[in-house]
């Protein structure tokens, strides 16, 4: 093709900005123009994408099999909710035990609570990861799963802080479409910058060959703790947004099934691909909703099948198995979206322009 590299960069940048504007306009319209159910699904896609990306950073990019993401989501959701709720709401809600006095008057704007949610989840992630990351492979998965359950049980029992099994209600719905997608955009930008820098190379190196990475002067343990901590930050932010979308949270929301659906997003999209996680989030979120029809009672001729709750999860498991058998690397593999790839430039595929 005739265009020079500089022209292409310019073109790609224009395309990126153009599509961002179109997408933002769509969101602005969708907030009012689409029914509330669809708005919620569109919103959930963004939040699942945030959570999927953060899990992908841990599992896909840094190669640490973690089953603890729901726990860090829970931390984020609770931190954010406690910071946003007004003192009056708190007084009314804590009925099992009175709320811890130092928490009562703490209140902050939504964005501050969002960052605090990520930060506190990251601190927990860092503390957990230092002992746990000495394990590898499946053992790491089991240990993180254990920690996630410990966090959930602590939340259930620390009633003065968390209101225990009753959960928190009446969280102001701050997670509007523009808010969720704004956070997603910031996260995407950071991820793409990070993974395209030399640090991204190093992260992949630690995943692919730890011994060789050590010989290259890389403190592999430090890098893995860092990646885990960053992933937990994303998990905390995603959990906080989730709480603000649903407006009520309780410990049961953050069971292992929550981690599984994130894992599904990451695996279907492609381990180690930023684009993949976004595509995975779109697919898994919409499919889980769309597949609800299989749980309704069905009449085929004279045959009547009563609705079976949970049937969509069975079908979803089968889809996941099919993906694992026929396309192990997921939809994107380790590749990334780029305009050049879309417009068939034969240019090297890179993540520069991912969404």
């Amino acid at each position: 093709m005739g265009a020079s590299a500089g022209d292409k960069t310019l073109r790609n940048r224009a395309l990126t900005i153009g599509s961002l504007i179109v997408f933002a306009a769509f969101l602005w319209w969708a907030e009012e123009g689409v029914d509330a159910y669809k708005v919620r699904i569109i919103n959930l896609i963004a939040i699942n994408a945030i959570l999927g990306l953060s899990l992908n950073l841990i599992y896909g990019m840094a190669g640490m099999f973690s089953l603890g993401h729901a726990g860090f989501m829970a931390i984020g959701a609770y931190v954010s909710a406690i910071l946003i709720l007004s003192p009056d709401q708190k007084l009314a809600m804590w009925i099992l035990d009175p709320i811890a006095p130092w928490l009562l008057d703490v209140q902050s704007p939504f964005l501050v609570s969002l960052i605090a949610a990520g930060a506190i989840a990251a601190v927990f992630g860092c503390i957990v990861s230092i002992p746990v990351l000495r394990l590898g492979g499946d053992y790491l998965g089991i240990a993180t799963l254990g920690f996630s359950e410990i966090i959930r049980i602590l939340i259930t029992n620390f009633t003065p802080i968390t209101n225990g099994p009753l959960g928190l209600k009446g969280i102001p719905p701050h997670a509007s479409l523009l808010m969720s997608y704004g956070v997603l955009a910031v996260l995407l930008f950071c991820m793409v910058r990070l993974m395209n820098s030399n640090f991204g190379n190093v992260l992949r190196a630690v995943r692919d060959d730890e011994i060789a990475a050590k010989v290259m002067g890389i403190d592999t343990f430090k890098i893995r703790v860092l990646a885990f901590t960053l992933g937990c930050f994303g998990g905390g932010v995603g959990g906080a947004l989730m709480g603000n979308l649903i407006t009520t949270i309780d410990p049961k929301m953050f069971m292992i099934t929550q981690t599984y659906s994130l894992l599904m997003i990451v695996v279907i999209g492609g381990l180690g691909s930023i684009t993949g996680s976004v595509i995975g989030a779109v697919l898994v979120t919409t499919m889980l909703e769309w597949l609800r029809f299989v749980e309704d009672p069905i009449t085929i001729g004279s045959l009547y099948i009563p609705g079976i709750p949970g049937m969509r999860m069975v079908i979803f498991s089968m889809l996941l198995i099919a993906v694992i058998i026929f396309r192990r690397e997921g939809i994107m593999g380790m590749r990334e979206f780029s305009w050049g790839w879309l417009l068939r430039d034969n240019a090297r595929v890179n993540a520069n322009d991912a969404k």
Partner: protein
Amino acid sequence: MTRNDLALELRSVTLQFGGLIAVNEVNMAVPKGSIVGLIGPNGAGKTSAFNIITGFYKPTSGSVEFCGSDGAARPITGMPPHEVCRAGIARTFQNIRLFSNETAIENVMIGAYVRQKGRWWMNMFPFVFRGAAREEIEIRDNAMRLLERLGLDNYADSMASSLPYGAQRRLEIARALATNPSFLLLDEPAAGMNPQESAELLSFIRALRDDFSLTILLIEHDMKVVMNVCEYIWVLDRGKLIAEGVADAIKSNKNVIEAYLGTGEARGDA
């Protein structure tokens, strides 16, 4: 030779795995700027010695002292591998260990990370930390120059795993050089090469030493390579140093011949 001329010194280094003594009271003194060899039959403890130097094994007893480009000798016994690399020792592996999901140039860039000043988070704010962004570009340019120097520039954007065997060996050396070492350990650089390729390797190793002012210690089974390029040779057998000296002395050393070919009586028994 005074102590200050040494790049690396092993003093009665012993490594024991339970009842097995992999390295037994080994003493080595490698002069700065030299190309030296460590040879011995299979299982003699050569790679174990490499792993001690690079920090993967902590010797049971004895010490390793390294003098980097700053001229100060310091003990590196039991230092973790990444700090050994930071001190200025780089190595390659007997079985090539490239980062297979990365391109050739990315492999070299990873080597440069140990000297990178910019922190990981700076790249998320490209308009604030312009210095970090410039450094990233410099690292890529330097990596490209290294690839050119080693004749790998055509492969820059190919996946490391897709390179031909010889190119993978060279890429491993390029990656090691990117860490800016003063001491290079080559573990069987001629393995799997045909006679012509190993002949080229000889001049290549010498050129490396001169261009990058390195001290090179290599393990090699190809005696032609060892005898031609090494200024001094140590011979290990079952963990013990059985001979050391210049190539001609090693060639005619009785112990060495016995270690490689067995003794006359043993052959008579067979």
